[in-house]
């Protein structure tokens, strides 16, 4: 048997820039397309955010918005932008990014594009627990904690119930559908159990809305998103191997079990935090990663692009909901459902549909 000597030559990598440090110790691959896509998405997000800050009962121009943001504008404008609208836009960006990253992780983990947290019922369970905590406990920190607990419980239940059948087929998802239906019923049950005032306080959670979020929960969201984002970024290499085949991560020396558990924890945690802030806006977790994959031409796991796309969808949907029937406000969950469901239907009815991301 002939042993070939190890040849060191650089692969011709199309579409990548190779950045090398002078001493050959570290080199970095930069995906040109992903870079461009991310920059464009950031630009679009900035535009959408500015628009969202400008629109409302006191219409402002873009320059007025930016002046107010920098603290150099009219005091009234500063109040409107910084105290009232900024929280809302930031909540939209944060929850959109959290939903989309969670969706992207879940899809990769289950090797199934349909297995986003919203579709398999995790959102509903988190909502049920958040509503129960609003009704039961008065503290502002209770809903996020409880919604994460709900998300974890639902995930455990779904995986336990779908146990033998694997996560790739439709069976896994219909199990999630059933769990979601039970959770939805529990939410209704809790809401009808309490006095009407308490029920009204908990109502935003049941449809998904960005209205009147407190800055406290926003801080929690930011913390969760930072932690989850960094953790997810460390998992990407292993997940990229998982995307190719179930056994490749093991061959490449990743601890497959730990990789899966960690990704699941991040996805569930992010979903829980996002639901605690905005309620079950499920479709973002499907649409964000889909758009990101489309733009990046299915290369790797576009976590950052997913986050940006999710945030963009959320901010745009919220803006649309505010403008469409002004002064009335359509909850953002309804807008994303109306936009996202036809796409999901098309996915399901398309004969050439490929399950794997």
């Amino acid at each position: 048997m002939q042993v070939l000597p190890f040849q060191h030559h650089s692969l011709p990598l199309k579409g990548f820039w190779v950045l090398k440090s002078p001493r050959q110790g570290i080199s970095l691959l930069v995906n040109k397309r992903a870079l461009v896509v991310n920059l464009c998405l950031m630009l679009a997000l900035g535009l959408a955010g500015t628009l969202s800050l400008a629109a409302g009962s006191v219409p402002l121009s873009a320059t007025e918005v930016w002046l107010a943001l920098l603290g150099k504008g009219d005091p009234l404008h500063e109040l409107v932008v910084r105290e009232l609208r900024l929280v809302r836009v930031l909540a939209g960006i944060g929850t959109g990014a959290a939903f989309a990253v969670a969706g992207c992780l879940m899809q990769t983990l289950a090797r199934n594009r349909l297995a986003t947290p919203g579709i398999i019922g995790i959102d509903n369970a988190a909502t049920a627990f958040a509503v129960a905590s609003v009704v039961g406990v008065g503290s502002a920190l209770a809903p996020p904690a409880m919604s994460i607990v709900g998300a974890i419980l639902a995930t455990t239940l779904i995986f336990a119930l779908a146990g033998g059948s694997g996560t790739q087929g439709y069976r896994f998802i219909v199990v999630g559908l059933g769990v979601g239906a039970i959770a939805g019923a529990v939410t209704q049950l809790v809401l009808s159990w309490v006095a009407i005032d308490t029920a009204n306080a908990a109502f935003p959670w049941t449809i998904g809305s960005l209205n009147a979020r407190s800055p406290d929960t926003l801080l929690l969201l930011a913390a969760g998103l930072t932690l989850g984002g960094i953790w997810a970024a460390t998992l990407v290499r292993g997940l990229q191997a998982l995307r190719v085949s179930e056994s490749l991560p093991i061959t490449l020396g990743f601890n497959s079990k730990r990789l899966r558990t960690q990704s699941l924890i991040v996805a569930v945690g992010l979903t829980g935090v996002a639901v605690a802030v905005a309620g079950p806006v499920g479709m973002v977790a499907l649409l964000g990663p889909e758009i990101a994959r489309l733009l990046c031409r299915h290369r790797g796991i576009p976590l950052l692009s997913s986050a940006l796309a999710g945030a963009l969808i959320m901010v745009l949907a919220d803006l649309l909901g505010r403008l469409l029937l002004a002064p009335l406000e359509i909850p953002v969950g309804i807008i994303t459902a109306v936009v996202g469901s036809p796409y999901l239907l098309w996915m399901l009815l398309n004969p050439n549909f490929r399950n794997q991301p």
Partner: protein
Amino acid sequence: MWKKLLTQRPNGVARPYPLMVWMLLGAALLALVMLSSLLIGAGDISPAAAWQALLGQGHEEANFVIRELRAPRTLLGLITGAALGCAGALMQTLARNPLAEPGLLGVSAGSAFAVTVALLLGASSTTLSVYVAQAGALAGCLIVLSAARLNGVGNDPIRLVLAGATLSSLLLALTSLLLMFDQRTADEIRFWITGSVAGRDLATLKELLPSLALAAVLTLLIIRPLAALALGETMATNLGHKPGRIRFVAVIVVALLVGAATAMAGPIIFVGLVVPFIARTLVGADIRRYLWLCLVIGPIILISADTFSRIIVAPAELPLGVLTAMIGAPVLLAVVRANRLPRL
């Protein structure tokens, strides 16, 4: 053990499932459930006082509550339950899918959407909603069943359910979007949209009687061909039936039944899934047999769910859909978890 005793002769040969036994048992249970629905409620009337009112000796208040509030409610529950149970059985045979359920697949949601649009366009809720609801149910039915005939979707029963659930959630989101346009309409149908048999006008029922009778006649006409169709398209053709025509009539019947049920009680999901599931377990998968049992089990489930909805959160009331979801979702899980999904 008990099932074996009932279904096998001592020498081990299978004997026909005892449909009559189950029918009698079901009828007795139904009578019991209806009686408890009349006797139990959130108000101050004790069951004993209600019993006296039933016998015609109660005082005025009890008489009013029983005659005007609880009796119509029980009657509506009876008819809605029977209609939904039968519609579920027919739809499952039609789609050859044990998970096909009018509520889950978007037929009820189509009906609710149509009613909302009609109310928004200025129709009055008392006169128009019945036929509109049936037309909406027909549209939803046609969409979902044509999706079932698409390549790839029909072969995978679970994929069809997912598509139907998506259609359903899309229609519900559109309905709530439309409701935001018009406060008057929203107030008018807010309670209806969650599904309930409380406080309905019996006039709706009178208006629905012709279409319910039509549905019953059509069902009797197509039930034999449907049983043949369950054996496969070729077999049905060889037996002298026309599959296309049978399907068309069955779709009309499902739309009539679901539209009528939705007009009476609002969109109620999962009843059409649970009822045929239980009926099939008891008397086997021949639609000529288990459809009869659906007629009894449907009202039992609906009326007992309605009775529970009154006492769980008394003095308030729970939407009926919440209870049916609590009963139905575990059944859905049980069906999906079966190793091999039965093809009907």
